[in-house]
């Protein structure tokens, strides 16, 4: 999985630079609702339930202001990644106890032809582990700026 490959999984319609959510539940709902609005998903309840179960398993707040809620769902036909940003930060029960500002939601179908779901998750963790990338993502105001960070990762 290289950065050029990764950027093909993003869509401007799933770029949310000004999230309104104040809580973890509101955050998951706000992003899933956007997937439904742009017709990537039909049933928000099923996907929200899957994401909540994932959070019961362990928080996807990986620390340093980052959350990567993720999972496979029968309600999806392709891998999709949404990006959301909260300047104020959202309490997410992260592993370091800090609020999250940068959120990547990765939704995958039951089976994907090229089996890219886990490599994508791994690549996202790799990119977000770099402090300079986190800083650039915080200041990315347009989808073009955002994609440039992902491309250069």
């Amino acid at each position, binding site marked *: 999985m290289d950065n050029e490959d990764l950027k093909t999984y993003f869509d401007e319609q799933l770029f949310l630079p000004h999230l309104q959510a104040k809580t973890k539940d509101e955050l998951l709902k706000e992003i899933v609702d956007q997937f439904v609005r742009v*017709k990537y*998903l*039909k*049933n928000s*309840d*099923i996907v929200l*339930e*899957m994401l909540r*179960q*994932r959070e*019961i*398993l*362990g*928080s*996807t707040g*990986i620390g340093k202001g980052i959350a*990567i809620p*993720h*999972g*496979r*769902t*029968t*309600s*999806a*036909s392709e891998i999709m990644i949404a990006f959301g940003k909260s300047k104020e930060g959202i309490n997410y029960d992260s*592993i370091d106890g800090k609020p999250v500002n940068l959120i990547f939601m990765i939704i995958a*179908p*039951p*089976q994907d032809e090229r089996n890219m779901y*886990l490599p994508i*998750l*791994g690549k996202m*963790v790799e990119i977000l582990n770099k402090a300079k990338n986190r800083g650039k993502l915080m200041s990315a105001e347009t989808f073009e700026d955002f994609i440039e960070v992902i491309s250069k990762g």
Partner: protein
Amino acid sequence: MDLLVALQDLDMMIEEISEVKRLGFSAEREEELINAREELASKINKPLLYSYEKLKKRYKRAIVPVKEDNTCLGCFIKLPTSMSAIGRTDANVIYCEGCGRILYWLF
């Protein structure tokens, strides 16, 4: 149908726990997930659950999405439009004529 879909979503999550842990994600409460899975399974009628488990053994994924163009994403055959009108209601469990998997209409 929604319960069955939720069950498969949980099964897929349980199946990939070790991989997501390897990537550095927290996934410590596996037992709670397994309990949630058992509770959900108990709400599904027995013949349907049996059919799901049997298909899961055979194909790994018992339920497959159907795309807007009526393609089964398990075997990629085009399904008759008459079938999709029934399948879209969510109340009916429909099996693919090609591969036998349970179909879930996305649109």
